[in-house]
């Protein structure tokens, strides 16, 4: 029986990788994928913790996060596409006219 800590640690690692990914990649799409990684880490955490506490709510919560993720994807991709249409690029580094 695997101690819950392992799951949690794994999730944490996943979250960290995702977060670093967001900071390291300049392709909006990939950044966005990294955010999905982070959300997955959250889900894993919820489920593992819930299981450790014999509490089903963790799993229920995951549903909502999934929905949120889905909604974000729709909107996010729409924005990315819109930008791509105009500028033919998905690199966020080129979107830095607003500053200071």
């Amino acid at each position, binding site marked *: 029986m695997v101690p819950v800590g392992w799951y*949690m640690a794994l999730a944490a690692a996943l*979250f960290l990788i*995702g*977060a670093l990914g*967001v900071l390291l990649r300049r392709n*909006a799409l990939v*950044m*966005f994928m990294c*955010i999905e990684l*982070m*959300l997955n*880490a*959250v889900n894993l*955490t*919820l489920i593992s*913790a*819930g299981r*450790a*506490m014999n*509490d089903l*709510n*963790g799993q229920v*919560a995951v549903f*909502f*996060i999934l929905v*949120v993720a889905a*909604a*974000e994807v729709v*909107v*996010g991709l*729409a*924005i*990315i596409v*819109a*930008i791509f249409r*105009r*500028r033919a690029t998905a690199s*966020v580094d080129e*979107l*830095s*006219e*607003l*500053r*200071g």
Partner: protein
Amino acid sequence: MITPPEISWIAVAPDLAMAIGAALVLLVDVQWKPAPRVHGWVVGATLAVAGGLTVLQWAEAADALAAGDTESLVAFSGLITMDGFAIFSRVVLIAATALGLAAGWRFVVSLGRRGAEAIALVLLATTGFSLMVASNNLIMLFLGLEVGSIALYVLAGLARERRESEEAAIKYFLLGSFASAVFVYGVALIYAGTGQFGILGIRQLLDDFIISSPAVIYIGIGLVVAGLGFKVSAAPFHTWAPDVYQGAPAGLVGYMAAVAKVAGFAAITRILLTAFSDLSDTWLPVVAAISVLSMVLGSVLALVQGDVRRLLAYSGVAHAGFIMTGVVGGATDGVLFYLAIYAIQLVGAFAVVAVVSGPDGAGSSLDEYRGLGRRSPLLAGAFTILLLGMGGLPITSGFVAKFGVFTDAWAQGYQWLVIVAVIASVVAFAFYIRVIVVMYMDDAGEETPLRVGPERWVLALAVGATILWGIFPSSLLNLAADALPI
């Protein structure tokens, strides 16, 4: 066998109304493609109904409290509450929405066919935030937050003719969802630490037990604070605000900024003061630090801005800091009053920006305001009063608000914080004054008076609120004092 849940309609009535309103707008639009005016009526009606329902809620809540049973205020098996705190915040949100839509109406019209969607999105966003401020459950809160935020991401990108608008949208979106992820991870960790999503539940737990090794909870709190700090644009989580305020459609920025701040702070206040008040010794200094950083960074940066929208954004950062002092003060009424006042003033201020820089909000550099005092005196006058109100000059409500939160903070023993705050507010004066200087003391470049549309009503109300609640604050202050979280 599943027992059907008991539904408390009254608890969600306003939100329901707004959701229905949004749906109505979309359907009507698809069906009849009516003139924008019609949408206007629908929205107006919706918000009016929603507002009316909040009054019902208030009465309900008052009775319940009088009867002494707070249970009945918690609805949907603890997902949301109907306490004064929620209702007050919700009213502020609805008001901000009404004003914000009026301010952005010309922009909405300029969107043509897409206008309906815009309106619907606004309504839905408000619904989401209004659920957020009412939620008594972190996941519910997260949902509300996302409903609101995602809608805002879209709104930010609505001024499609302007490149900045897209940039604003993508920045807002990426950073926003990044922050949301952080926030929800925090929620997850809190859940891991307490086994609870319910705010009251957590409160109970912490009241009853001492958690042996609460580190995970603190990490959770930290991430939650960071996530919400992003929404209220508190330093150092503020970086998105200037860019987004500048890029997003001028007409709607006021609305976007206001509702995000209100909801965000309502959430922070509820989480920190209700759920984790037992751990306040630990988080108070951190929040104080955030507050100081926000005040200082915001004021100092606003001082050197050449663009009014960025200036207002940074001033918003500073205001986040001021409101944080209220959170440190630990009294919800101070925070609520400040939020109400600030929301109205913010929407008003951006209404002016919308007028000056046109529907889709092209430019908003200080030069465009040169000689506004001559060009359209009333507009300039209103802007002046609003700016001074934000600055917190006496006889404006802004002063009362600041005074309230400072007093609370001092009473909490955070004198040094208050002193920093008052000095920061002097710096704040400095940059509000700059705008006034440009408007009145530089000779006019453009002479033709500006066309003021529905914004005039927004301004009338905002100015009225600023002055009247500045001189007779007790009416609102009493409400805020009654609007306690359970």
